[in-house]
C-alpha cells in the first residue's frame, strides 16, 4: 500500500479531484440508503416511543400531583373551617358561662341581702316585743308597788311622824330584799 502510494505520488498521475468515480457515487448512495432504512426502522421508533412514554409519565405524574394537591387543599380548608367553628363555639360557651356566672352572683347577692334584711327585721321585731313586754310588766309592777305603798301610807297615816318614817323605811327595806331576791333568783 505504501509503495503504491509512493508510486502514485512520484509518478504524478494527476486525476482531477472534482471528477467523481461513478462507482463511488453508487456505493455512497447504497451505503447511506441502507443506513437510512436501518435507522428509520430500528432506531427512530425506539427513541420516539421512549420520548413519548417519558412525556406521558411526566404528564401523568404532574396530573397526579395536582389532584393530590387539590385534595390536600380541600382538606386544609375543611380543617380550618372546623377550627374556626370550634373557636367560635368556645367563645360562645365562654360568654354564656360568664353571663351565667354574673347572674348567679347577682342572685346570691340578692338572696344574702334579703336574708340579712329578714334577720335584722326579725331582731327588731323581737326587741320591740320584748321592750313592750318589759314596759307592760314594769307598768303593772310599778302600779302594784305604788298602790301597796299608797295603802300602807294611808293605813298608818295619822299615828305619828315616827311611824310614818318607819313605814317608809320598811317599804324601802322590802324593796331592797325583793331586789336581792330577784337578783339571787
Amino acid at each position, binding site marked *: *500500500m505504501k509503495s503504491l502510494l*509512493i508510486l502514485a505520488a*512520484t509518478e504524478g498521475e494527476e486525476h482531477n*479531484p472534482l*471528477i467523481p*468515480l461513478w462507482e*463511488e457515487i453508487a456505493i455512497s448512495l447504497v451505503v447511506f440508503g441502507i443506513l437510512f432504512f436501518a435507522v428509520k426502522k430500528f432506531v427512530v421508533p*425506539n427513541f420516539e416511543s*421512549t420520548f413519548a412514554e417519558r412525556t406521558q409519565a411526566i404528564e401523568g405524574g404532574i396530573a397526579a400531583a395536582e389532584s393530590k394537591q387539590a385534595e390536600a387543599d380541600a382538606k386544609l380548608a375543611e380543617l380550618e373551617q372546623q377550627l374556626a367553628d370550634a373557636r367560635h363555639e368556645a367563645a360562645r360557651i365562654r360568654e354564656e358561662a360568664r353571663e351565667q356566672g354574673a347572674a348567679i352572683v347577682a342572685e346570691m347577692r340578692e338572696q344574702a341581702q334579703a336574708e340579712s334584711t329578714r334577720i335584722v327585721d326579725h331582731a327588731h321585731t323581737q326587741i320591740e316585743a320584748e321592750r313592750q313586754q318589759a314596759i307592760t310588766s314594769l307598768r303593772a309592777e310599778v302600779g302594784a308597788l305604788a298602790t301597796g305603798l299608797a295603802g300602807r301610807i294611808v293605813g298608818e297615816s295619822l299615828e305619828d311622824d315616827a311611824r310614818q318614817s318607819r313605814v317608809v323605811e320598811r317599804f324601802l327595806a322590802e324593796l331592797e330584799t325583793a331586789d336581792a331576791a330577784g337578783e339571787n333568783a
Partner: protein
Amino acid sequence: MTYAATISASGDEFHAPGPAIFELPSVFPWNGDGVVTKPVLQLVVAAVVVFTLLYLASRKRALVPGKLQFAGESAYGFVRNGIGRDIIGSHDFQRYVPYLVSLFFFILLNNLFASIPLFQFPTFSRAGMAYALAGLSWLVYNYIGIRKHGLIGYLKLQCVPSGVSPAMYPLLVPLEFFSNILVRPVTLALRLFCNMFAGHILLVLFATGGFHLILEYGGIGYVAGPLALVLAVVVSFLEMLIQFLQAYVFVLLNAMYIQGALADEH
C-alpha cells in the same frame, strides 16, 4: 502520517502534497485499480458504527436512561429538535427525522475519520461521495416540494418571489430558479468536499513538511520543522471543529431546503 514521512524521505526534493494524495489504491493488493479503496471502506464502517451506536443507545427504551442511552438521546435530540423541529417546524418535521439523523451522523463520522488514527482520511474528500449525498438532498427536497404543491405549484413557489411587481419577473424568475434549483446541490457538494479536501492537504503539508525540514533540510529546519509539527497539531484541532461544522451545515441546509419546499405560499 507514516506514509507521508515515507514520501518525504524517499527523495531529496520536497514534493508538496497535491491532489494525488487522494488517489488511494484498492485495499485488495491483487486488484490495485479496484474501487474498494479506504474511503469506500470508511463509508461502510461509518454506516455500521453509526447504526450500532444509535441502536444500542435506543434499544433499552428506559424511562430513566443510563449513560449510553442518555448520550444517544442527547445526540438524537440534537438533530431531531435542534435541526429538524426548529427549522422544519413542529407540525411536520417528524417524518424527516430519520433522514436528518442518519445523514448527520453519517457525515459527521466520515468527516471525523480524517482525525481518527488508522483512518486519517476524510471520506468526503472524494468528490463522488459528496456529490452522491448532495444529489440525494436535491432529489429529496424537490420531491417533497413537488409532492406537496405539484410540479407547477412547486416551481412557482421556488422561482416566483412574492411581493415583487410582475415587471421584474423576467429578471428575477431565472435568478431564483438558478439559485434555488440549480445551485443548491452544487454548493452543498462543493462546500463539504472542498473543506475536507483542503483540510487534509493542509494537515499533510504541515506533517510532511515538518519531517522534511528536520530530516533533510538541516540548519534552520531543526527549528522550523518542530514548529510545523506543532502547527500540524493545532490545525488538527481546527479541522475537528470544521469536520463537525460541515456535517452540521450540510444537515441544517437540508432541513432549510425541506422547510422551503414545504412552505405555503408566502
